[in-house]
């Protein structure tokens, strides 16, 4: 009887011998015959060398687990980001925070508090509505919480961790992380409100240039004329609106990882977010200073909405004239 299994076995054995024989006949090089081209797997070609891969990373290969994003093998930009975080970023933070605080302290020691030269008037004039004050504080308090929680991520390990120890510091940092993630939303709302309500008062004009030329009267006793918002305040407005917009865009990209960009993009978003934030911190420190300690009568604008009439005439003379002429000024004696 024809034994199929034996026949197949014999055929397989023959085949196994035939192929290498053919290959051998083909591939053996000698001086007379050039070597036949190597077919199939050539281990010398296109090996994966770490040095080359680093140059073209992130290198995406093929992966058989369901998470196809894991097919990236290496991302060397992480090292650049790490070096920035541990070096230049810390210096930038020190400059923007400590440097600015130092500058303001120096300014206060040299110039002192800017007083109302004519002394307090007997009258108050309404400057900001309740809504304007609400949206300012919505933005301001949100921003303060965001700035502090953000600074903790940058410098907390250096400044706070030695004081609190690992456990307490981690607990604090988790809460600050959630604060940062969620208070971002009222901040964004506040910036949008401010933009809509105050845009028409913050269009730059020639008067602002003249105001800046006199350094806003900071260095002397001159009072360059200004409207509702002087040049410096317009600068603060645009820093808040544009800086806030930049922080919002980068922040949302960071909050929803990989929704708009890849790993290098995420690192870039983080660097830009931090950079804008630090510059904004420096600017707002100046704003907070002048609005509170730095100038007598300034805080009233945002605290009660009504300011001393002499203060208004000294710092926003054009605005006082304008609302007086329109008949929209609301003036009443101070109690």
């Amino acid at each position: 009887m024809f034994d199929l299994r034996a026949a197949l076995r014999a055929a397989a054995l023959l085949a196994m011998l035939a192929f290498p024989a053919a290959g051998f006949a083909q591939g053996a090089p000698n001086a007379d015959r050039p070597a036949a081209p190597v077919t199939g797997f050539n281990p010398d070609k296109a090996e994966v060398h770490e040095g080359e891969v680093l140059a073209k990373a992130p290198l995406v290969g093929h992966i058989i687990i369901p998470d196809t994003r894991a097919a990236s093998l290496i991302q060397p930009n992480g090292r650049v980001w790490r070096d920035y975080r541990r070096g230049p970023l810390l210096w930038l933070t020190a400059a923007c925070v400590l440097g600015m605080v130092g500058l303001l302290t120096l300014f206060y020691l040299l110039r002192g508090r800017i007083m109302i030269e004519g002394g307090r008037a007997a009258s108050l004039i309404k400057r900001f509505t309740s809504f304007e004050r609400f949206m300012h504080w919505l933005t301001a308090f949100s921003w303060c919480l965001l700035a502090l929680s953000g600074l903790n991520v940058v410098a907390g390990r250096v400044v706070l961790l030695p004081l609190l120890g690992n456990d307490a510091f981690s607990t604090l940092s988790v809460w600050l992380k959630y604060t940062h993630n969620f208070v971002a939303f009222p901040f964004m709302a506040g910036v949008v409100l401010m933009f809509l309500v105050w845009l028409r008062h913050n269009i730059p004009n020639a008067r602002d240039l003249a105001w800046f030329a006199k350094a806003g009267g900071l260095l002397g006793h001159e009072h360059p004329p200004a409207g509702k918002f002087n040049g410096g305040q317009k600068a603060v407005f645009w820093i808040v609106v544009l800086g806030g917009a930049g922080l919002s865009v980068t922040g949302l990209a960071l909050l929803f990882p990989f929704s708009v960009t890849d790993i290098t993009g995420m690192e870039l978003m983080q660097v830009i977010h931090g950079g804008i934030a630090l510059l904004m911190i420096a600017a707002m420190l100046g704003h907070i200073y002048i609005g509170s300690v730095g100038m007598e009568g300034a805080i009233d604008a945002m605290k009660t909405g009504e300011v001393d009439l002499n203060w208004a005439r000294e710092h926003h003379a054009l605005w006082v004239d304008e609302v007086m002429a329109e008949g929209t000024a609301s003036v009443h004696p101070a109690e």
Partner: protein
Amino acid sequence: MRMMLLALVTIAASATLAAMVLSTIESPALTAFATPGARVDAAE
């Protein structure tokens, strides 16, 4: 003064609301250097 307090209350309330809304969006596991559009195919 009242506006400052109102602002603080609004911040707390809106932040809590944001937290509640965000927790309804299912977050994928962050496991790799994703490129935009790449999706995790793991069955749940």
